[in-house]
């Protein structure tokens, strides 16, 4: 990771210097070692703060549209650093005409998996002040206010990285990566199958427990690259389903089901929803359920695999399965 990191920083500087791009969208060091934040670097000098490390999980694709970077042509091209999984989101946004490809120069950056400080904390480690990665990238030495300790990188990966879709970039102008050929890791639908195998009452209890934690901060929605609406139906008083807070338990379910439905066939499984949830709700379980269903019902489909795809919910086959037959897992 460190080797890639160095190359990325050097290359970003070069591209800015030679005028290929006029700004860089990347990550910068935060208050602590672990809270790298997405950032826009407008000058070569400011690039000193650019970082690329184990804690750069944030997907910069959404950042491109929230800041209209890619839609404003007269500001020159923007260099954006995209990890393999981020490129799916980028493609999906291209498909939906939310980005102008010409305004963006994509530097595909290799990734060995991102770490999640909340998972380090979940190990009972408190007062974390620093971290060092071992040569082989397998261990982390964690420094804290209360002493140091060593942990396995694998045990503290961001949820989405645990079942990485593969290290190949789906769109790029240039690559800095040394593991492009690495395939998927783990089975990302195992978690869905586990839930599916439960009794309906257990499933209901599971979601009741998880969703009742929801505080309707909208972090999942606002971080989601597929939830790219300028004005969400839940914020729009004219929509008939506007709602602002957890006024009742079903309202939360309604919000999350509708959100999952709105991104069905468009969600690239980038995992931002679960990553940003302050309550640690496994929201990706909704999206993965839909990805799994779509694959099973209508054939394999990976949103963002390439730009210009026609999604499964805007397509059909004469012989599609009947809705009444979608589940034999019961529930009745």
């Amino acid at each position, binding site marked *: 990771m460190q080797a890639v990191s160095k190359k990325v920083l050097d290359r970003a500087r070069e591209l800015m210097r030679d005028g290929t791009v006029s700004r860089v969208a990347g990550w910068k060091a935060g208050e602590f070692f672990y809270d790298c934040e997405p950032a826009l670097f407008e000058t070569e000098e400011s690039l000193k703060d650019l970082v690329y490390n184990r804690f750069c999980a944030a997907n910069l694709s959404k950042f491109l549209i929230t800041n209209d970077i890619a839609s404003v042509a007269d500001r020159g091209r923007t260099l954006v650093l995209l990890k393999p999984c981020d490129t799916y989101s980028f493609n999906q946004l291209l498909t939906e005409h939310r980005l102008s490809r010409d305004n963006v120069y994509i530097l595909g950056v290799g990734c060995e998996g991102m770490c999640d400080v909340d998972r380090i904390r979940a190990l009972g480690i408190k007062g974390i002040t620093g971290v060092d990665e071992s040569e082989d990238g397998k261990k982390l030495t964690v420094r804290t206010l209360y002493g140091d300790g060593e942990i396995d990188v694998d045990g503290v990966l961001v949820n989405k990285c645990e079942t990485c879709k593969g290290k190949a970039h789906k769109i790029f102008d240039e690559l800095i990566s040394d593991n492009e050929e690495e395939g998927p890791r783990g089975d990302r639908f195992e978690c869905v199958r586990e839930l599916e195998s439960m009794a309906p009452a257990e499933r209901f209890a599971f979601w009741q427990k998880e969703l009742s934690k929801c*505080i309707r901060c909208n*972090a999942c929605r606002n971080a989601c690259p597929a939830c790219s609406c300028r004005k969400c139906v839940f914020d729009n008083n004219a929509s008939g389903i506007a709602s602002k807070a957890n006024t009742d338990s079903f309202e939360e379910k309604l919000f999350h089901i509708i959100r999952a439905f709105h991104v069905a066939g468009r969600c690239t499984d980038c995992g931002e929803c679960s990553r940003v949830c302050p309550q640690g*709700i496994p929201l990706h379980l909704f999206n993965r359920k839909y990805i799994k269903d779509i694959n099973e019902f209508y054939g394999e489909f990976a949103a963002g695999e390439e730009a210009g795809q026609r999604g499964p919910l805007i397509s059909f086959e004469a012989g599609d399965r009947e809705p009444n037959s979608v589940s034999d897992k019961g529930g009745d």
Partner: protein
Amino acid sequence: MAVNGSVKKIRMSDLDRFFSALSLTQKVYLPVEKAGQYDYAPWEPGVSYDPEELHTVKSAKGLFFPQSEDLIKYRREGLSLAIGPVAPEDEEFVVFGVRACDVKGFEVLDRVFLTDPVDTYYKARRDHGTVISVMCPKPEETCFCGTFGIEAEAPGGDVQCFITGEDMLMEALTEKGEALLESVSGVGNTNGDGALLPAADETDLKAAEEVKEAHREIMKKLPLAGLTTEGFGKDADLLTLFDRPEWKELSATCLGCGTCTFVCPTCQCYDIREYDTGRDIRRFRVWDSCMYSDFTMMAHGSPRPEQFQRFRQRFMHKLKYYPDNYEGAFSCVGCGRCLKKCPSSLNIAKVMKKLGGADND
């Protein structure tokens, strides 16, 4: 800590008994784990207190200022409306395990809701609630309550507690606190060899002082220990601060979600909404976030149409407008929740460092 009858002690292992005894007359809220996260929930048999957990995800403010609460209810009939009130809270309750920062957070809310015009719904809950604070165990790297002059070793509330190994000392600070502890004075401990809440002795108090001293040492080592409010507050120039060009850069990656607001112990903005079935209607208020694009939306549009303006609003409020309105008091208590939870890793500490006094860099 003065040696008087008001300092009691309880065995940590007897806490359940304490909650159980209180629960006979009122609800006892304490931090409870639910699917991996801590939040305040009513005690019930089987629920135990985890002294290690520093912060609940949401602060305790929701117990006095719920995320949503009904204000009135009404029904449409033909062209007329039948309106019925919703009674304010009238049952006693106890909040246990509040940290120093959150206790100070109540004071921030009190200044807003208990000054004229008094918010009757909030007041009812404040009047009926008793706060038991517990000094924090291991502060986190995100903590900076000291910046706002909060003494973590004197958490406050109606009763404040200190954990000294196997025991917890309980010191009543108000009459309400005293009465609460008194209400369980007749209860015996689990072993059946004495009272549940015997008076603390000199040794206990000394142990408490040692715990506090150790805590002070840790507080000094916190990464944000040096963060100051210099450059903010009543005496700072409002327009200079308002017009600082750095706001744009600081807010560039703000997603406009409400995480910071909803985990914050001091944010007090709310929106009024209606749950409308077409016939019966509940008008309720819900927490709102100044980070939301529809915050204070009016017919002509938003007075703060851009995210950087909304972002600025939040921090100007905490660091400038609130101090201007309330004799210099800040409306941040340094709990550090926003530092931990912001999806884009933006937070008040970064703002203070960027815009504040030279010491902060």
